[in-house]
């Protein structure tokens, strides 16, 4: 009874404070003639978004969507690269090789202990000095054209849905090949050599599907000072990506190292006893088990990367936060805009948590 009284009291206080604050906001908004609704979403934005088709005459709503896409571009690419790099460095941290071990250690100890924001600013500065001005562009044929404004690479052209079809087809092909090879290996005892089979077949399927669905391709081409065609990774995108990947990979490396160490020693010894190669030992025995231990902390790093992508706003990469700031600077009211921003990030975080938890549950079921 006392417990309930206490709970009700706490909740009442919370509700009262919220009510008080919202009341203040209403009062302030009325006194300062601030817009409180979300009608601004359907107004013209008044600013263009660089390296996109978004024009200043389009709606704020569409600007935010463009920013959302840019956040996704940054976060998804960053998560993929940081996972690969972080895993490699985490393994290197445990290498028997003195030089490799210490190079990896130096990388981790340095990058982990400096502010991400400083890394973002530094990588922008590095990209601005390392890449050549447009008149000295690095022109590597149809594959990539690169200068200080950005790096353009060969890319698909046309309907996104068609591209998705191609990706899914390739994925299904690779998965099918992997399954088949495993079955063969189980039946005959021959090595599976999955990668050797899956990669060429996957590539072939990709090309065939590309042609079948009628997806186009666009190659970058240097035209005076301009680059046409291809897809352009702008300087600010590359800078943000570089910093996010460097920072997150140093954290993932530590998690990978810890979870490899947490795999019972007997597992590695058993792999040695089976005369597995170093790669097989790591890929088939150690990593799958350490994945189970490291998955949740690595999932948290993915969340952090997503949230940290908001720092790209500091170097004006037009991701969600930056677009919101621009919208607020132009005409959108601050409170509804920032609340919307928070809710979008919250939703994205929840989706990532959900995926990580699902994968985690699946791994656990396999374990038992």
């Amino acid at each position, binding site marked *: 009874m006392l417990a309930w009284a206490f709970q009700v009291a706490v909740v009442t206080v*919370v509700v009262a*404070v*919220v009510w008080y*604050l*919202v*009341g203040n*906001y*209403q*009062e302030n*908004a*009325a*006194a*300062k*003639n*601030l*817009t*409180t*609704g*979300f009608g*601004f979403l359907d*107004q013209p934005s*008044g*600013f*263009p978004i*660089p*390296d996109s088709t978004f*024009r*200043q005459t389009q709606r704020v709503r569409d600007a935010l969507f463009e920013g959302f896409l840019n956040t996704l571009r940054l976060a998804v690419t960053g998560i993929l690269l940081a996972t690969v790099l972080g895993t490699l460095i985490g393994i290197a941290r445990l290498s028997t090789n003195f030089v490799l071990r210490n190079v990896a250690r130096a990388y981790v100890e340095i990058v982990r202990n400096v502010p991400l924001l400083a890394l973002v600013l530094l990588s922008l500065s590095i990209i*601005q*000095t390392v890449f*050549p*001005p*447009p*008149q000295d562009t690095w022109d590597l044929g149809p594959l990539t054209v690169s*200068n*200080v*404004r950005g790096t353009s690479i060969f890319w698909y052209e046309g309907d996104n849905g068609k591209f998705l079809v191609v990706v899914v087809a390739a994925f299904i092909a690779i998965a099918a090949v992997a399954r088949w090879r495993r079955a063969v290996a189980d039946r005959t005892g021959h090595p599976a050599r999955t990668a050797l089979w899956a990669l060429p077949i996957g590539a072939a399927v990709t090309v065939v599907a590309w042609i079948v669905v009628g997806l186009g391709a666009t190659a970058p081409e240097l035209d005076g*000072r*301009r680059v046409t065609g291809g897809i352009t990774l702008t*300087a600010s995108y590359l800078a943000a990506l570089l910093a996010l990947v460097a920072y997150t990979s140093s954290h993932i490396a530590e998690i990978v190292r810890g979870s490899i160490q947490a795999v019972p020693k007997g597992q590695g010894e058993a792999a040695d006893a089976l005369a597995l190669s170093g790669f097989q030992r790591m890929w088939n025995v150690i990593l799958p088990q350490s994945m189970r231990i490291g998955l949740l902390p690595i999932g948290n790093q993915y969340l952090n990367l997503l949230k940290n992508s908001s720092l790209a706003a*500091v*170097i*004006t990469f037009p991701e969600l936060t*930056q677009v919101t*700031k*621009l919208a*607020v*600077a*132009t*005409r*959108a*009211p*601050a*409170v*509804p805009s*920032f*609340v919307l921003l*928070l*809710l979008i990030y*919250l939703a994205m975080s929840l989706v990532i948590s959900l995926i990580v938890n699902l994968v985690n549950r699946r791994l656990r079921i396999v374990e038992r």
Partner: protein
Amino acid sequence: MRRTIIRSLAPLAVIALVAAGCSDDDDDATSGSAAGGDTTAAPDASTADSVATGATAAESSTPDSAEEVQTGESILDTVIANDVVRCGVRDDLTGFSVVDDAGEYVGFDADFCRVIAAGVLGDATKVEFVPVVADARFPALQAGEFDVLVRNTTWTASRDGGDGADFLHPTFYDGQQMMVAADAGYDSIDDMDGANVCVVAGTTTEGNVATEFAARGLTVNVLSFPDIPAVQTAFDEGQCDGWSSDGSQLVSIRSTYPAGPDALVIFPDVFSKEPLTPAVIDGDTAWAQAVEWTIFATITAEELGITKDSATADSTGDDPAKVLFLGGANADGVTLDPGLGLPPDFALQIVSQVGNYGEIFEANLTPIGVEDRGLNALWSDGGLQYAPPYR
């Protein structure tokens, strides 16, 4: 309807709630070190505050009617109580507002902050300069981070309406132009099809460039950067073909460009109207008109021919118009108090401490190469600067 929307903002409110809940704790733990500082001038105001809050609380049973939200005191009272004007400025534009080697804010905008302080408080030095970047200025104005925004800000309808800003009298009529490197091989904007044009983020210039290029049937990629040094770095490294901003800004940037002014060319085309105007928060008429009339005073002083040096003498001189304007008694021993909430001698303080409009213009903008008053000449000289009569 609006209330429902507001009440549905619960998540944010939860955050704000914890913020408010904790701010008390912070006061204990850090012994009010952070909070105490800002409210040093509060003792006077605090009693007034509690009265005002009480009144609001009593009336808040009907929070939808428009009158009682005005019960909060005017910023004018707060400024007088704190004895300082907090002025939102920029810190990166020579001629308008920049920090000099001695750590002082100098420039045209900085001087108008001093004009306001001289007019309201009688002392041009009682300004607290609050540097603010372009894309933060309106939210910061709404949040009350400063009392007045003097940050060569363009007056537009959306800002007036949506951003809670109340624009006063334009201190500078400007227009947007385009600057390119002299060796870039461009002779006019028409040569710049597909160019990268760099601007400062969160300004009207982003949209203007896109609109202008579209009107000429050209494509353009508008890159934005947080401040002028960042644009300059990008420009130097070759990220931009063109640099666009208000003409006066471009003149200023060109005058201090490290490689020398001749490395840059400004095209003569002016493709937008940019009335650069001080702004205050909407809904505070007393404060708005006080600030507005301090600005008018600089123009009136120039119309009347009162200068910084002559102001004190003129205030007791024999020209009745000047004497009246400077707060002196007329022939019948009566001084004019127009009821603006300003001291009767506010114009005298402004002109004698800072100068008239022309003097402020020449002191700050002539050195950076804005030779011609142009639209900013007095109306009597064919310009647009015109002050309503002081009487």
